């Protein structure tokens, strides 16, 4: 969705009166616009009476917040120890190669972004991943094909 100040104002209003409301607002902005776009920083700085530097500091601190929208699908593959113990790294490599991507990359057609994630709490069913917020576990080479088919839609 394109930047829309009225929409952003509505998001801020929704959190009126909450203590420490910045993170919920940023989640709201990203959920509406797919990222924290530049105009959002200027707008929020004014709306919340903080400096743009301060806001940039918060936004850039957290891995979740993007400065540009991701692909239509977002695949997060776990790279933490429990998944490493089941060769999650090897599996991730083969999947990235199938998609012609590096970590953090988006396919040219904008279909999918693949990102690293450090633990999904599915550690007894490693290797694990999350596709568009849906958990996937006990992944194997068969799963690679399924994931590629899923994100090609």
């Amino acid at each position, binding site marked *: 969705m394109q930047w829309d100040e009225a929409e952003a104002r509505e998001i801020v209003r929704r959190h009126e009166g909450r203590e420490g409301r910045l993170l919920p607002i940023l989640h709201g902005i990203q959920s509406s616009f797919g990222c924290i776009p530049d105009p959002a920083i200027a707008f929020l700085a004014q709306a919340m009476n903080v400096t743009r530097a301060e806001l940039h500091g918060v936004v850039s601190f957290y891995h979740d917040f993007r400065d540009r929208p991701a692909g239509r699908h977002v695949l997060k593959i776990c790279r933490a120890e429990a998944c490493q*113990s089941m060769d999650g790294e090897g599996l991730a490599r083969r999947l990235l190669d199938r998609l012609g991507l590096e970590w953090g990359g988006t396919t040219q057609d904008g279909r999918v972004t693949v990102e690293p994630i450090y633990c999904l*709490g599915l550690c007894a069913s490693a290797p694990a991943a999350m596709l568009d917020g849906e958990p996937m576990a006990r992944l194997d080479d068969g799963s690679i094909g399924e994931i590629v088919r899923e994100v090609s839609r």
Partner: protein
Amino acid sequence: MTMRFFVPRDAAARAVGADKVAAALEDEASRRGIEIQIVRTGSRGLFWLEPMVEVETPDGRIAFGPVKPGDASGLLTAGASHPLYLGRPEDIPFLKRQTRLTFARCGIVDPLSLADWRAYGGGRGLERARSLGPAATLEEVTKSGLRGRGGAGFPTGIKWKTVADTTADRKYVVCNADEGDSGTFADRMLLEGDPFALIEGMAIAGLAVGATRGFVYIRSEYPDAVRTFERAVLLAEADGLLGVAAGFDIEVRVGAGAYVCGEETALLESIEGKRGQVRAKPPLPAHKGLFGRPTVINNLVSLATVPWILAEGAEAYSAFGMGRSRGTMPIQLAGNVRHGGLFETAFGVTLGELVDGIGGGTRSGRPVRAVQVGGPLGAYFPRALFDTAFDYEAFAARDGLIGHGGVVVFDETVDMMRQARFALEFCAIESCGKCTPCRIGSTRGVETFDKIQRGERVAANLELIEDLCQTMKFGSLCALGGFTPYPVMSALRHFPEDFVRRATAVAAG
């Protein structure tokens, strides 16, 4: 008569097809005109058997697993001869050997049914706390010997007492549900499987210390847990368990992907809407915590254990365990392990018993080589240390830690130098940047390992790593920089061949 089925809605069950199994059961039943009811529960925590489906019978529930959607038809008429038949879940050795206090309801009840929660003992702890009053409630928690289950192991009663003794216009109870350690999922399972246990525990904490407001900070990597817990809070408000009449309310906050926010002061900063940077202590959060007010900040498991302690009494709880580690610990068996899952048991079981006996060795079938206990900041233990008892002090005595109870098993294919390097790399990615040993030390450590990998001045660089670890251990502001040396140094000490071999190979090559 309506047949009742129980299918977990836990993320780890959904991740291997539980939703499809539930849908297949519905379809098959309606096709054959059989009336069924499907209750979506949390998980029992036997993850190699998920999706594990249970069916109600006159003799109690009977389990089948791991179930695929194609098995649905057979399950409608299945008996003991079915190939996936597991019998009564309580009789499965992995469950039978446990002592489930904190996880007593998890996997059994519908997590969003207050009626289920009450039928299985929910609410009794809060009721007793109300009749005891704040001082005696505090006394119960102290006497139980409960220590922080997030990893630090600080006595919960003392923490609460510190907050109770302050005077302030407002106090807070904060639940740390930023469960970022690889190999752990206890918080997630409770949020998804028994959220009212946490709500009750926080209400008891509020009563004991004089706080009326609670925050639960859940990591964004757990969308299922966020969804379930938010709904549970709404239900609790409608019920009167939370809200004005109850004198306590809870707000859910979702993290944004920063591991360091699991550190309590960084978490408080994050709730306040700031960068998740660690605060120097003192002041302690108990004196000046959230928004500068006295704050109880506890791990989710600690808080969710409190209702049991109040309901059954401090002595009943402290009767379990060994030494200064009282009660039970939900141990999480993960990684390359045959029987992975949640194993709640009294402190004192040995690491070897956990990995070989309960876990059944590796999933790959190869010999176990290393076990990382306590998450990414925990030490790697070799088989030679498998006699270590699961206990805060016993692990500390062997330069390790139990952390939040995660046990990640690796088979013989593991490259320990790679694991040591990863520990530093992870620290570099997740460092909040406030203190130099962590921010710079982690990056220099990764670079130094890369030199060792290339065969450059191996002995001198290994010495440099040790020196760097000393600096990080004693000079860092929090456990991220301070404990990263545990996996690094334990890998070096217990698996030196992985570091030397590399050097020799390069020299020969």
